[in-house]
């Protein structure tokens, strides 16, 4: 007689946005794993049509409150590529500085408040702070400097107002940026110490081979541009993305799922992929930390994504200090342009992975078409595939344990569910 067991996690916790997980177990085998994103659709791609290209970065920021800069950067770069707008090198460096702010704020939130509690059996970062007050307070202080950087350069931390097509609305003075240096230098030392603490966590063993994808550049860590590099396939240019990757709708989710067009194979984006493909381009302190405190690269244990994320915080702090020390304001805050009928795309690295935008523009400078592919809809299939491999070891345990272990694995991807809905609740179904 066959038996079915169904386990549901109705609302995943300590993730950004709302989703569920449904697990069906038949005869002690995992029959299906469905990551269901029930975040309501908000139709950005539809209402962007007919809007002036100048409005796009303000609108796309609202896709995600945690990584608005990633959406702003991807959209302005896609529009600038479309209209062949050349960007001043100093503006380019300032944009990297803005990305540093977002990576610090988003990564540190995930490391200390969302992910680290799982390694100590705590329900929240606040509970973890009772056991490790110094470490969590240090984390909050680093997070604050990330937000402060966004405030000075972007106007505010959530939905910054300063990004525009062609550059920025307003350039910061050298002095305004220099006031951030003491806190950034303190944070760099603190982040290095935090990474040593995190690298010593007790990690569940879950090392699984899969295709890792991230942007790649010759001489810098990937933020706002690069080729699309893979651990399995040759690199492609960003304008070939849609030929190689497609999105599909599944009945149980409001987020579309991405896969490779030819093989329907899932792939993994984010800090593990970026560090694996770009370790050479990391900052000196980050490289030293890898040599002295971290497991050997490449890191592929999903639970060690928290180490990769910590390394990226160190990198972002060091790069931010470098950009500010060498900053001299350019003559113009932005490059002027004349809109014409055109189309273009761009990919950037959001904290949780590569993000792709494509826009068509009409002769009046209005958006004619928009296609936005967030990182979590690309990771979704890999998360389901990983859960099918990870969960069998827990099948003799209670539904609560299975659900809790599944959630811990899901958190390691830092899924950003609000933005993937065009994405989580958890059911386990045992037959």
């Amino acid at each position, binding site marked *: 007689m066959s038996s079915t067991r169904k386990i549901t996690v109705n609302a995943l*916790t300590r993730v950004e946005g709302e989703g569920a997980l449904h697990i069906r177990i038949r005869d002690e085998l995992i029959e299906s794993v469905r990551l269901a994103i029930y975040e309501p659709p908000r*139709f950005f791609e539809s209402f962007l049509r007919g809007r002036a290209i100048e409005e796009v970065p303000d609108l796309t920021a609202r896709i995600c409150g945690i990584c608005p800069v990633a959406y702003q950067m991807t959209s302005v770069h896609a529009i600038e590529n479309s209209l062949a707008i050349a960007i001043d090198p100093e503006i380019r460096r300032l944009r990297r500085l803005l990305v540093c702010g977002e990576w610090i704020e988003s990564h540190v939130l995930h490391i200390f408040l969302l992910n680290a509690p799982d390694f100590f059996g705590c329900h929240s970062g606040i509970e973890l702070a009772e056991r490790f007050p110094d470490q969590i307070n240090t984390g909050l202080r680093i997070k604050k400097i990330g937000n402060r950087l966004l405030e000075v350069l972007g106007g505010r931390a959530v939905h910054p107002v300063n990004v525009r097509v062609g550059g920025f609305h307003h350039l910061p003075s050298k002095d305004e940026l220099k006031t951030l240096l003491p806190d950034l230098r303190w944070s760099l030392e603190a982040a290095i110490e935090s990474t040593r603490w995190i690298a010593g966590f007790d990690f569940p063993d879950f090392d699984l081979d899969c295709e890792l994808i991230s942007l790649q550049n010759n001489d810098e860590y990937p933020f706002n541009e690069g080729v699309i590099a893979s651990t399995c396939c040759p690199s492609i240019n960003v304008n070939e993305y849609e030929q190689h990757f497609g999105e599909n709708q599944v009945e*149980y989710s409001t987020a*579309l799922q991405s896969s490779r067009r030819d093989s329907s194979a899932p792939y993994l984006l984010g800090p593990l992929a970026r560090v694996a493909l770009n370790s050479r381009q990391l900052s000196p302190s980050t490289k030293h930390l890898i040599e002295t405190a971290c497991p050997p690269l490449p890191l592929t244990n999903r639970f060690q994504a928290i180490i990769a994320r910590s390394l990226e915080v160190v990198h972002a702090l060091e790069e931010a200090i470098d950009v500010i020390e060498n900053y001299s304001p350019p003559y113009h805050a932005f490059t002027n342009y004349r809109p014409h009928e055109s189309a273009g795309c761009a990919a950037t690295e959001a904290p949780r992975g590569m993000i792709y935008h494509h826009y068509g523009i009409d002769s009046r400078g209005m958006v004619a078409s928009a296609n936005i592919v967030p990182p979590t809809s690309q990771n979704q299939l890999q998360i389901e595939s990983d859960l099918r491999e990870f969960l069998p070891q827990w099948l003799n345990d209670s539904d609560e344990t299975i659900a809790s272990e599944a959630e811990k694995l899901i958190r390691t991807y830092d899924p950003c569910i609000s933005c993937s809905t065009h994405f989580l609740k958890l059911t386990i179904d045992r037959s």
Partner: protein
Amino acid sequence: MNNKKRLGVFKFASCDGCQLQLLSCEDELLELAETIEIAHFLEASSFVQEGPFDIALVEGSLSTSVDVDRIHKIRSSSKTLVAIGACATSGGVQALRNWGDHDEFVAAVYASPQYVDSLSTSTAIADHVPVDFELRGCPIDKRQLLEVIGALIADRKTRTPRHSVCIDCKRRGTVCLAVTRQQPCLGPITQTGCGAICPAYDRPCYGCFGPAAQVNCPALSEHYLAGDTTETTLLHALRNVSAAANVFQIESDRIESAHPESTQ
């Protein structure tokens, strides 16, 4: 037993940015957690408790039939319900669908629209259940959030200003973009709370905090339209993140009916 107030944080259609503001109170978060019981906050804690709640912070707009049912349950289990952010107080940026063809919007994104639960409008929490306090902003300002939570903990009245962004530009010493550069700034009709950021960054206000108290929108529109501002530019300025905020909606609809070419 403790007598701490029980806090619930709930999310509807939104970007998560407003509840993130609570986690962005880096200096106050741990102290706050000592003075209030965080009973339900999915993004921050996997210890999820049932109501009743003394304070419910509700982020996001209502745009699915399931969510409309859910807000009634939250209301019935909450003593004080505070709607936080432009989505919860006016429908948010996703209310731009209210002027679009919803079926076409769904079909443009989803190959199988029948699986998608989505309403043709995105509406504020107060359109469905009584709301005790509305905290504006896209995103909300964390100082205002702390003020509201502090007031609710202390059982005192909340104090958030209702004057326009203009006043804060003057306080900040920012040169007026509407007067000196004829830019269609929404500062004169937008409620303060952000700190008048945009004009200080050389760009016009785009209305994140919704309409200020007792504003005269048509007078401002006609002033801008008499200059270099086109109807389309002004319509789009009003139809942004606070598009369905009552006063902005009335004004954008007025401009549209007076100038039908503005949506072309």
